């Protein structure tokens, strides 16, 4: 209903912003949700696939996440951050939940893959290098120390807990927490604004 007020020319990159679409979605506006879907599905899919690395499981989780965005849109608070952050945080949470619940025996194998040289940031930079905005992300990711980059990647893209990372890298627990915090703060300083 609200979306119609903004004319028929809105596309995925035009018209009301995602935050506004989320607020309308929270009121039960299906048309607004389809706008949310158009903008969020790609990023959600990219992230979930990145974490799960299994197409069938990823597809399930992506659908669950988008449904949860629809159902729980009322919990989005614009004052706390952007809608894209809210959606990506939810997507990451669900992807990580799935990794941990299906992991059991596959742990060691997964950790071994993750710890092999070249992974996992290189994949990412390859996919994003055509977009100016992501060149900025890449530049900032590479501004981290190797150790910070590895630690952030193992947790964020690998879905490992900081304890698992500490075990894998044979470093103290506190060291891993510090690396994560220093790494994210450095990234934030380099990137500046919100997504």
């Amino acid at each position, binding site marked *: 209903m609200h979306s119609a007020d903004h004319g028929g020319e809105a596309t*995925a*990159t035009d018209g009301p912003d995602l935050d506004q679409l989320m607020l309308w979605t929270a009121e039960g506006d299906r048309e607004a949700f389809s706008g949310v879907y158009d903008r969020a*599905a*790609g*990023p959600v*899919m*990219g*992230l979930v*696939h*990145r974490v799960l690395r299994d197409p069938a499981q990823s597809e399930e989780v992506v659908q669950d996440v988008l449904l949860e965005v629809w159902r729980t849109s009322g919990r989005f608070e614009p004052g*706390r*951050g*952007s809608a*894209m*952050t809210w959606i*990506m*945080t939810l*997507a*990451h*949470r669900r992807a*990580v939940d799935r990794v941990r619940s299906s992991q059991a025996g596959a742990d060691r194998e997964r950790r071994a893959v993750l710890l092999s040289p070249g992974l996992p940031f290189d994949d*990412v*930079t390859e*996919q*994003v290098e055509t*977009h100016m905005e*992501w060149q900025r*992300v*890449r530049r900032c*990711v590479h501004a981290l120390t190797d150790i910070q980059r590895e630690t*952030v990647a193992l*947790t*964020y*893209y690998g*879905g*490992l*807990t*900081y*304890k698992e*990372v500490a075990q894998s890298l044979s470093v103290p627990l*506190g060291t*891993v*927490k*510090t690396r*994560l*915090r220093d*790494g*994210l*703060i450095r*990234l*934030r300083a380099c*990137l500046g604004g*919100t*997504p």
Partner: protein
Amino acid sequence: MNAVDPHDASAAYALHALPEDERLAFERHLEDCEACREEVAELQATAALLGRAAAVTPCGRPA
């Protein structure tokens, strides 16, 4: 184990890297710590950018 400074856990929390028991403990701490909630919100925004950097482009359209 939980005697450590909870503020150290903000980034691990934003990255969903805390084990379940520590996540719950940190969320209880967040209820009473406005500065921590602000820091977590900022770190989540940064983490979300890492998430967007992983985006695929379905149908050849920019994500």
